């Protein structure tokens, strides 16, 4: 309530994957909407990344949710939006860094789906554990720009469509317990391509921490919220992508960089630091459109 997440009459898309968080979110939001007459127009929005044996099964769960909770469903697919399924992408780039592609593409896919549904906000099921992992990940990578944004309960208010995480302070354990006792129907398998994801290390650590001192998860989020960045630090500015118009802090948005790499058979384009690959890219781009550099630059350091 105090975070002012929703206003009456708003159209909200719930990012639904069929997993525990989004199923519980859909259930809770539709229950509360009904019980307290929030007057919200709720929709289920699902992304089909094209992962056989994982996504096709979980989408079946979302379709059941659509019937069970009476919320209209829209599915957007990578194949339609980008011309590539995750299966095809992994065949090309292997099992490392595939989560980078998927994560970048998914965020855009959610925004495009939300635009098609003409909603005012997108709600996702990220829970406290997820946010604590993200804070840790951003610290480990020294990504200050993301660190300052990742703990906000609502992000992107100045961008295409704002996104909020109602479960920001809810422990993953609480969500699972709730789903169990309410006998909610959800899909529970690890994505087959995820074992090498960097986030896995952060997750192991957070789980071990939770065992010793459960409050640690909320404390990490609080620390993330309290970070102050020195005013002398250079921060990337938010502009728009030259190629597709999406929000971006570089000349091209990450999704366009990655897609360009895929379509040209350069799977490393947009991955990691620009260590010599940049010069090849520069040559190519000069012949093409004339952008200076499409690799991310390092952006300043934390002052204590």
């Amino acid at each position, binding site marked *: 309530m105090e975070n002012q997440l929703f206003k009456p009459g708003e159209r909200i898309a719930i990012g639904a994957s069929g*997993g*525990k*968080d*989004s199923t519980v979110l859909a259930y809770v939001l539709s229950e509360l909407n009904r019980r307290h007459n929030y007057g919200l127009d709720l929709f289920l929005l699902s992304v089909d990344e094209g992962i056989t044996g994982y996504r096709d099964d979980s989408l079946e769960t979302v379709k059941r949710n659509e019937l069970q909770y009476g919320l209209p469903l829209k599915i957007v697919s990578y194949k339609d939006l980008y011309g590539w399924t995750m299966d095809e992408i992994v065949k090309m780039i292997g099992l490392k860094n595939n989560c980078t592609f998927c994560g970048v593409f998914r965020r855009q896919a959610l925004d495009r789906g939300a635009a098609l549904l003409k909603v005012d906000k997108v709600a996702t099921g*990220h829970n406290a554990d997820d946010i604590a992992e993200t804070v840790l990940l951003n610290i480990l990578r020294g990504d200050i720009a993301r660190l300052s944004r990742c703990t906000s309960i609502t992000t992107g208010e100045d961008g295409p469509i704002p996104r909020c995480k109602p479960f920001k302070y809810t422990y993953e*354990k609480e969500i*699972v*317990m709730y789903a169990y006792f309410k006998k909610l129907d959800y899909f*529970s398998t690890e994505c087959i391509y995820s074992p090498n994801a960097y986030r896995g290390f952060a997750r192991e650590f957070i*789980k071990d921490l939770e065992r010793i001192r459960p409050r640690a998860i909320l404390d990490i989020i609080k620390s993330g919220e309290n970070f102050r960045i020195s005013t002398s630090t250079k921060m990337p500015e938010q502009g728009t992508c030259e190629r597709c118009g999406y929000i971006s802090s570089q000349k091209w948005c990450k999704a366009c960089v990655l897609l360009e790499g895929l379509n040209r058979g350069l799977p490393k384009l947009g991955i990691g630091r620009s260590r010599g690959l940049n010069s090849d890219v520069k040559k190519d781009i000069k012949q093409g459109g004339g952008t200076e550099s499409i690799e991310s630059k390092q952006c300043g350091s934390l002052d204590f």
Partner: protein
Amino acid sequence: MQLTLEFGGGLELLCESVKVHNVNVDLPKGVDKLTMRNLLSWVRTNLIKERPEMFMKGESVRPGVLVLVNDCDWELCGQLETTLEEKVVVVFISTLHGG
């Protein structure tokens, strides 16, 4: 002792995709009460057919696996020291997957 064990959240895949097991657990020698500690090693030996590291880490369950004893969180009943009675229902739910 007759017990019912349930596996959820993906753990059933470690037990040949069977979610509910009605089992008979013998007390270890010299022990008059069955504790969760005993039960866990029994489960690892007799029910987990693959990837035991997904279920247990050291003496206890892997962090991220919830344990309910008769619908009560085991952290409230003594965790590994929880004593089990006849016909108790123990549920193991994994939380480690996408949401």
